[in-house]
């Protein structure tokens, strides 16, 4: 099992992700600088971590979506490699149009940083199979722009196709239909605002994030 974490200038959860993946799965994790034009061979998972890539210039994730490495991330996704965008990584995937919709400023205008209870809406994905039917998990959020927006037809399609993966039990940011995480139509690219990388062992308040990484690497 092999994973890569992309490091953008301004990423700040890159090492958390590496540690979380290593401790929960034992997988080898490479850190890949955003300026690289190649990814390591035979990857099972690429993670776009949380943070403030490029200082959120222009829009969150906008500049990062054009980083040289993103062409490789897109190519890997097209080959079926699992790609997970967490928090700022979710924003990058939306800006890269690898996921539908966009993340707006939180409806309450405040940065939110707190544990959140999530409904596992689709437990059959490559990222959630490890929850083995559990419907409720706990992670934490920390973001100012996590208010998921998509037009109504897109939301209907996401709901109808089982692409809504996580939903907030109590919506912290005003996101449409309480959406916390979605997958692409092929099921191999996920974006979520909550951090599994900040909830992978009980000492962190929740170990529920571990099964997220275990799911995807077990399915590889």
């Amino acid at each position: 099992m092999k994973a890569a974490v992309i490091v953008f200038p301004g990423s700040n959860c890159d090492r958390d992700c590496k540690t979380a993946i290593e401790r929960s799965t034992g997988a080898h994790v490479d850190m890949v600088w955003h300026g690289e034009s190649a990814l390591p061979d035979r990857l099972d998972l690429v993670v776009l971590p949380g943070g403030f890539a490029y200082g959120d210039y222009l829009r969150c994730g906008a500049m990062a979506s054009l980083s040289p490495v993103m062409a490789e991330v897109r190519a890997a996704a097209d080959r079926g490699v699992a790609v997970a965008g967490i928090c700022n990584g979710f924003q990058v995937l939306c800006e890269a149009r690898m996921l539908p919709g966009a993340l707006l400023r939180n409806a309450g205008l405040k940065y939110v940083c707190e544990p959140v209870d999530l409904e596992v809406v689709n437990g059959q994905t490559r990222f959630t199979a490890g929850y083995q039917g559990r419907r409720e998990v706990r992670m934490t959020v920390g973001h100012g722009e996590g208010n998921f927006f998509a037009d109504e037809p897109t939301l209907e399609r996401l709901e109808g196709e089982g692409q809504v993966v996580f939903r907030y039990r109590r919506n912290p940011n005003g996101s449409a239909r309480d959406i916390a995480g979605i997958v692409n139509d092929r099921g191999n690219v996920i974006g979520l605002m909550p951090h599994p990388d900040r909830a992978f062992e009980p000492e962190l308040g929740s170990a529920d994030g571990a099964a997220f990484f275990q799911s995807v690497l077990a399915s590889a």
Partner: protein
Amino acid sequence: MFLKPGVLDVQGKAVEAALHGLGWGGASNVRIGRVIEFDVAGEDAAVAEAEVKAMCDKLLANTVIESYRAEVA
């Protein structure tokens, strides 16, 4: 560029409330947008305008949530 109608502009709402608080109760529909100004090489305004629109679609605006107006002066 502005958030499209129908996309909640929370900053606009907060500023509107602040204007009301200062006594300007008549202020409504406050929208906060952004202006990006730059030089484009070339002589032909129509060509430049097409180019600027492409830039907006590709990077400067996120057309999922924003609408824009491009002007070449």
